[in-house]
Each structure stands twice: as structure tokens, then as C-alpha cells.
């Protein structure tokens, strides 16, 4: 096991490059990381690695995938108009979302961008959201900045300016902080005077101190506590229950009681407990929102599934082309598609032949041959050939666009679940009200009406479910934080709760259970060759762009192959490659390697199962969860993969269209869907929980509740365990806080309650659940430790 020098990923077989002095002896996980390493060294940024090792890693990043994009569309005037703005100094401003920001050294490197890209005047990185804000010269080239970022290993995605929404969000966040600050100031000042009163201040001192507590409590109970009242009011209006209802009730009762005390000359109130409670509650909710926003940020992005320019024909003979962003294509335009291009539109081939990878759109693992007159669809990728394509449908009208739309509609229709705390607070409120009324009746029969009223209000104050309301967001914050640290982005707390109830799991096949691209699974040596066979493979195949060639190169590199000089290289499209090395003629075709006419070796290539797939399936089944496969691919392929992964063939569904997948998910309950492609997107939305694996199409990221940043599936099993343990902690906290409430009720009924007793019980209960939350459970602590 070695650790990649660049991305810190653990790798079984490391890539080495000893030809270069700078990189000799350092292990890398892939060519991408190696290339970036060399770029950094040659630009004099070798310090990056010292800073990284000294500063520590904040979050995991995925191995680098170089895009080799030219980003020319960034310089289009229509793009500039929509995505950038000029400031008062006539400088151009733009923001990019960057993939792969993960440590202190990233910050250092990104903010050095002006040194590599001279058009960039300033680069400022927001680590938390992985967003870099660039200031460029007005006539500066954006593509230059984007290429520089890409070469450093951070793939940039331009962000559309939405000034209004940003401003609103910022104002909301600042207001939230102000509420917390005011609550903190109020609570701590009140504590000072409350302690003096408890300590025995008398006469005019007590009166003044009491008045001061009321003065400090007013802003806390109005301004700071406003969100509680608002939520309580909203939920009551919708005839729902939320934990904010009993909290608001307690706060209001406390306020009435305090003001009444000042009027009546009673120098005691519950403001010390209540204001501290408001502060702690606001704080815990702030933490939860903060950590959820991190996950959400990826959803708000205007990520484009085709983030690169296309060549649009500008003359009748289709010989002159101009580069344009796919967003600006119109029906009837003719574009040219080359190898590795993502098809941005639905259209028809006018000239040329293509081999197209349909995996993202339909789940088929085999590339499809398309020739003149055949339709091509947005979201697929060209793996071989060049063709002219007429645009029939663009943007939202494409099949992919329609899926995207249904995903977005699906989100708005997704019914929110009734959370555990919501259910409890409903019972809780009725019980408390019932108790309060019976206490009132009991005391008013015994004696004075005012005393009965006083005690009833006291009961409503001290039974405030503060511990519960405090512990739940903290438990979720901890769970989400733990997940994020291990490369799992969870959309919100409800996902954790739903995940803990999952009974069925469906995996997509291509790209989810399998790696999603061909790799060499076996290579049988038949005859001895003149030159080392791996060197021959690498030297020949590195010149080809065929996906099979890529698989063979990876295989050869894993066996530490070197490149040799090739003469007379030729590639016969769709057949294979050949070339002369050191006077011998070598050729690779039909899954065999030849030296002259002698067969040297035969190999087999297929889309192999992910290493950890079988382990995840086994651990999920062990927990009593039904595991199945749901694929758009042919039955034989689906069955093969299912068998290898240990999934019973009875729960394998093949040749399922995206729409059918969606219906199957809607029909089942407590179901988890794991997928990657656009064909899974609708199903990811309609399943109770949708997980998008690393390397998913952008559209599935938008559809999913959970996104895995690390390659592989093993995090799913851990996340499921985490969700179960998190719910266990929440239930334990529930029991703890309810027992404290029971104690306070008994204290009220036996007439023992005073503000001092409340000031002891209420923080004590909060402290207990806090410790319980941080302590966690044994299983939760053992997660990710092995």
C-alpha cells in the first residue's frame, strides 16, 4: 500500500516516473497526479508539498482527472456577458467552483495564480465552499486562467452571478450571527445579576438587579428568539407540529412571568435559564445549517453537464468552424464532434461515423456505432471518430434536459418526512398541556387562583424540551461532519434519518458496481518476445485514443513499463494498432499481441467490478437489507456482474429505461438507490435516499441526497452504519431529556420548584444530552478506525 504524493489517496499499485529527476522515487496514484506534480515542480511551486505536509489535510480529494479542455468558450462575448461583471476599476470579476480543494497548500497555490496566468490580477479562495473569485484585466483571457487552474489539478466550473440571491443569503447569515451574539450578551449579563439575586441580594438591590435582567431579556426574547416564534407559527398554521411550538410557549410564558414579577415586586424570574437556552439552541442550529450548506453548495452550482466549447460550422460547406458554448447553440446549427467530446445536443449525424458511449444516458456498457442518419443524444460521449451533427434539439428540449427538469420538479415534490422529534413534540405538547391544566384545577380548588395560574405557567416554562431541541441538531451536525471528513457529502439531516430506515438497496450497474470503463482483467503470455511485452504495449497504445488502448496503457503502467521509440506507427480505426520497435514489427488487435505473425499474448478486457463492491453487498445483506441491481444494460452483463458481487439473480433487473427505474423507486418504500449516470437521476430523486458515487454525471449529483467524493462503494456501508448509530444516539437523548422533564414536572407538582431549582435542572439536562451526543456509541466510534 502506498500513498499518492499529490492527492494522498492510498493505492495498491503506484505509478512511478523515474525518467524525470524531480519525480523519481515518488509514488503516484495515477497519471493525472503525476502530471500535476511535474507542472508544479517545473513552475517552481515545489513548496506546495512542504506546506501540505506541514498544514495537514482538511478533507479528502479524489485523484486528478485531467480534462485537457481548452476552455475557449470562456472568451465568448455572450459568455462574458452572462457570467462575469466589470467593477468600478474596469476589472473583470468571475467566480469558479474548483474540484479538489483539500488542504492549506491548495489555498497557497490557488492564490499564486497571478504568477502563472498574467491576466489574473487577484485570486481569492473561499476554502469552505471551494470557490475562487478572480479579478482579471478587462481584456484579459478567462480561458488562460481556467487552463492554468486545470493544469494545477483543480478543474474549474464557472459560476453564474446571481447577485440578488447571494446578497439575500449573506444578509440572512449575518442576521443569524447577530441573533446569536445578542443572545450571548444578554444571557451572560443576566447570569451576573441572577446569581447576585440567588446569592441573597435584598431590598432595592434585588429590585434593580431584577429590572436589569428584564431589560437584557427583552432583546433576547424578541430579536434573538424570533426564528422560534416564526417556525412555531408556520407549523401551527399548517396544522403540523414542531419542537419550536413548546419552546415558544415556554419562552412566552417566561416573558409574561418576568414582567409580571417586576410589576408585583417579585424579584425572581426564569430569564437566566431561558436566555441561556435561546443562545445554545441558536448556536446548535447554526452549526447544523453551516455544515449542511457545505453539502448544498454543490447543488446550487450551475454545473453544466457539458462544460466545454463545441465547434460550430459557420459556412454551408462545413469547412469553417467557430468555438461556441453549447448553451448558445440553436436548432439547425451544424457542429463537429471529435473523440472525447461530450455530445451537447440531440441531433442527427450528417457526415462521418462515430462510436458513442451511451453509459451515462442509458446504462449500456458497450459503445454504440452510429453512422450517417443515426440520432445522437446529449449526455453521451464520443469514444471514436469524427462527425458533423445537425442540432435537432438543444438545451432543455433534449432528452437529458427533460430528465434534468423532472429531477428538479421531483425535488420540489419530494414530501418531507415526519422526523422523530416532530412526532415526539406533538405527544409532548399534549401531555404538558394536560398536566398544566390539571395542575391549575388542582391548585385553584385548593386555594388562590393567582397561585394556581403562577404554578401553571411555571410548569410550562420548566418543561421546555430544551435538551431535546439542543441535542438533535448537534447529533446530526456531528454525523454530517464525520461523514464529510470521510468524503461523504450528505444533503441534510433528514437523509440520515431516512437512511437508517432503509430496507432495500438498488445498485446501478455500469459505473456504480463496475468501474465504468474497460480494464484488462487477464493477460495470458503465450510466447516469448524480443522486447519486454509491457513496454511494447505502452509504446504502441499510448498513441491511440480508443478506450481499449487506455485500458492497456493503464495495465502496462501498473507493470512499470517504459516507453520505447516507435517507427511506422499505424492505427486502423476499429481494428487495432501496429508499429516497428527496434526492428521488430508489433501489432495489437482482436485481443491479441503479435510479433510479426507470432502471437505473444492474448488478453481480455471488460468493465470490471469495483474492488469493494462484493464487500459492501455482503455487509449490507448481513444487516438484513435486500440488495438488488437495476440496470439499463443487457441481461447477460447485468447477471454477470450481480453474480460476482454476490447479489441474488432474483433481484436483478436489466434493460430498464430511466423512466421505468423512476417508477420502480416510486413504488417501493424505504429504498436506497445508488447510481451515477443521467439514466439514474430520476430514480435517485424518487428513491427515499439517492446516493451518487464518485465520478457521477453532474445531473445525478443534483438529483442525489448523498454524494461520495472518494472512488469506490465502501463508504456506503459505513454511512449506513453511521445513520443507524446516529438515530440510536438521538433516541437515547430523547429518553434522557424526557426523564429530566419528568423530574421537573414532579418538582412543580410537589411545590418544590423555584427559579434556582430550574436554573440547576435545565442546564444539567442540556449538559447530560451534550455529553451523550459527544460520547456517541461504541459502534460509531469504531467506524473508520480499522
Amino acid at each position, binding site marked *: 500500500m502506498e500513498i499518492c504524493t499529490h492527492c494522498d489517496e492510498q493505492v495498491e499499485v503506484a505509478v512511478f516516473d523515474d525518467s524525470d529527476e524531480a519525480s523519481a522515487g515518488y509514488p503516484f496514484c495515477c497519471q493525472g497526479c503525476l502530471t500535476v506534480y511535474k507542472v508544479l515542480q517545473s513552475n517552481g511551486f515545489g513548496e506546495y508539498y512542504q506546506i501540505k505536509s506541514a*498544514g495537514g489535510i482538511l478533507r479528502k480529494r479524489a485523484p486528478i482527472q485531467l480534462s485537457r479542455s481548452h476552455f475557449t468558450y470562456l472568451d465568448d462575448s455572450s459568455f462574458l456577458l452572462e457570467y462575469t461583471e466589470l467593477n468600478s476599476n474596469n476589472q473583470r470579476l468571475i467566480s469558479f467552483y474548483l474540484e479538489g480543494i483539500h488542504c*492549506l497548500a491548495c489555498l497557497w497555490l490557488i492564490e499564486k495564480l497571478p504568477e502563472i496566468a498574467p491576466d489574473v490580477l487577484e485570486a481569492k*479562495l*473561499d476554502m*469552505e465552499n471551494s470557490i475562487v473569485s478572480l479579478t482579471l484585466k478587462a481584456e484579459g483571457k478567462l480561458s488562460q486562467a481556467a487552463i492554468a487552474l486545470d493544469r494545477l489539478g483543480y478543474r474549474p466550473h464557472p459560476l453564474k452571478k446571481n447577485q440578488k440571491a447571494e446578497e439575500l443569503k449573506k444578509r440572512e447569515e449575518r442576521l443569524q*450571527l447577530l441573533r446569536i*451574539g*445578542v443572545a450571548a450578551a444578554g444571557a451572560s449579563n443576566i447570569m451576573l445579576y441572577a446569581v447576585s439575586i440567588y446569592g441573597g441580594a435584598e431590598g432595592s438591590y434585588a429590585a434593580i438587579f431584577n429590572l*436589569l435582567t428584564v431589560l437584557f431579556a427583552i432583546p433576547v426574547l424578541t430579536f434573538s428568539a424570533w426564528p422560534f416564534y416564526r417556525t412555531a407559527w408556520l407549523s401551527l398554521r399548517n396544522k403540523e407540529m414542531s419542537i419550536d411550538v413548546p419552546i415558544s410557549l415556554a419562552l412566552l410564558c417566561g416573558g409574561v412571568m418576568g414582567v409580571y414579577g417586576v410589576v408585583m415586586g417579585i424579584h425572581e424570574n426564569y430569564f437566566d435559564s431561558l436566555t441561556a437556552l435561546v443562545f445554545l439552541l441558536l448556536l446548535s442550529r447554526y452549526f447544523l445549517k453551516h455544515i449542511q450548506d457545505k453539502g448544498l453548495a454543490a447543488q446550487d452550482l450551475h454545473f453544466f453537464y457539458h462544460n466545454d466549447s463545441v465547434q460550430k460550422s459557420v459556412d454551408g460547406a462545413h469547412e469553417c468552424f467557430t468555438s461556441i458554448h453549447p448553451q448558445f447553440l440553436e436548432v439547425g446549427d451544424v457542429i463537429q464532434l471529435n473523440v472525447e467530446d461530450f455530445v451537447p445536443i440531440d441531433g442527427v449525424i450528417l457526415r462521418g461515423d462515430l462510436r458513442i458511449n451511451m453509459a451515462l444516458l442509458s446504462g449500456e456498457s458497450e459503445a454504440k456505432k452510429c453512422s450517417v442518419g443515426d440520432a445522437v443524444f446529449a449526455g453521451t460521449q464520443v469514444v471514436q471518430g469524427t462527425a458533423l451533427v445537425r442540432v435537432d434539439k438543444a438545451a432543455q428540449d433534449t432528452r437529458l434536459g427533460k430528465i434534468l427538469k423532472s429531477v428538479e420538479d421531483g425535488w420540489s415534490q419530494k414530501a418531507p418526512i415526519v422526523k422523530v422529534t416532530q412526532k415526539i413534540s406533538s405527544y409532548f405538547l399534549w401531555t404538558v398541556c394536560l398536566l398544566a391544566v390539571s395542575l391549575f384545577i388542582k391548585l385553584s380548588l385548593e386555594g388562590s387562583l393567582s397561585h394556581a395560574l403562577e404554578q401553571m405557567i411555571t410548569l410550562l416554562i420548566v418543561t421546555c424540551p430544551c435538551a431535546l431541541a439542543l441535542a438533535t441538531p448537534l447529533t446530526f451536525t456531528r454525523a454530517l461532519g464525520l461523514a464529510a471528513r470521510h468524503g461523504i457529502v450528505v444533503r441534510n439531516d433528514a437523509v440520515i434519518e431516512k437512511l437508517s430506515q432503509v430496507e432495500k438497496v438498488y445498485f446501478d450497474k455500469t459505473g456504480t458496481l463496475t468501474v465504468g470503463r474497460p480494464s484488462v482483467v487477464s493477460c495470458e503470455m503465450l510466447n516469448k518476445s524480443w522486447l519486454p511485452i509491457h513496454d511494447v504495449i505502452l509504446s504502441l497504445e499510448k498513441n491511440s485514443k480508443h478506450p481499449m488502448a487506455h485500458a492497456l496503457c493503464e495495465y502496462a503502467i501498473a507493470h512499470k513499463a517504459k516507453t520505447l521509440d516507435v517507427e511506422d506507427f499505424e492505427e486502423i480505426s476499429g481494428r487495432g494498432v501496429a508499429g516497428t520497435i527496434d526492428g521488430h514489427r508489433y501489432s495489437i488487435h482482436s485481443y491479441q499481441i503479435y510479433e510479426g505473425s507470432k502471437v505473444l499474448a492474448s488478453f481480455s478486457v471488460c468493465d470490471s467490478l469495483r474492488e469493494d463492491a462484493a464487500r459492501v453487498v455482503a455487509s449490507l445483506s448481513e444487516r438484513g437489507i435486500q440488495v438488488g441491481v437495476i440496470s439499463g444494460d443487457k441481461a447477460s452483463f447485468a447477471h454477470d456482474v450481480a453474480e460476482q458481487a454476490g447479489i441474488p439473480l432474483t433481484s436483478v433487473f436489466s434493460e430498464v429505461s430511466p423512466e421505468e427505474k423512476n417508477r420502480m423507486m416510486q413504488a417501493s418504500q424505504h429504498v436506497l438507490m445508488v447510481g451515477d449516470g443521467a439514466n439514474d437521476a430520476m430514480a435517485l430523486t424518487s428513491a427515499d435516499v439517492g446516493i451518487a458515487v464518485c465520478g457521477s454525471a453532474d445531473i445525478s449529483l443534483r438529483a442525489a441526497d448523498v454524494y461520495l467524493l472518494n472512488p469506490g462503494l465502501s463508504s456506503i456501508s459505513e454511512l449506513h452504519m453511521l445513520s443507524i448509530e446516529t438515530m440510536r444516539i438521538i433516541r437515547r437523548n430523547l429518553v434522557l431529556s424526557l426523564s429530566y422533564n419528568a423530574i421537573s414536572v414532579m418538582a412543580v407538582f410537589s411545590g418544590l420548584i423555584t427559579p434556582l431549582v430550574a436554573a440547576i435542572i435545565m442546564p444539567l439536562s442540556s449538559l447530560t444530552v451534550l455529553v451523550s451526543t459527544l460520547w456517541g456509541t461504541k459502534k460509531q466510534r469504531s467506524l473508520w478506525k480499522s
Partner: protein
Amino acid sequence: MEVIAILIPLALLLGLFFIGAFIWVTHKGQYDDLETPKLRMLLDEKPKRGKVHEQE
């Protein structure tokens, strides 16, 4: 105990001053990004070569 008559208003003034300061810096955007600045300060700024020569 009479000293309290001065101390309490003083404490209140001090407290109000800090609340005011807090509101002010929040509106100024001091707390908008809580993660990057704490990391940025760890990075040493290398003096530009030209300037070093001037000082010598």
C-alpha cells in the same frame, strides 16, 4: 456597596460598546468566511526580490 452605583453603569456601557462593535463588524462582513482567513495567516508571504535589494 455604594460603589456598585458606578460599577454597574460602567459594566453596562462596556457591554453595550462591545455589542455595538459586534453588530458593526458583522455588517462589515468580518464573519462571512470563517474558514479561509485562519488558514491564510499560516502562509508566509515571501518578500519580493526587488524590494529586498532596495533595503540593502
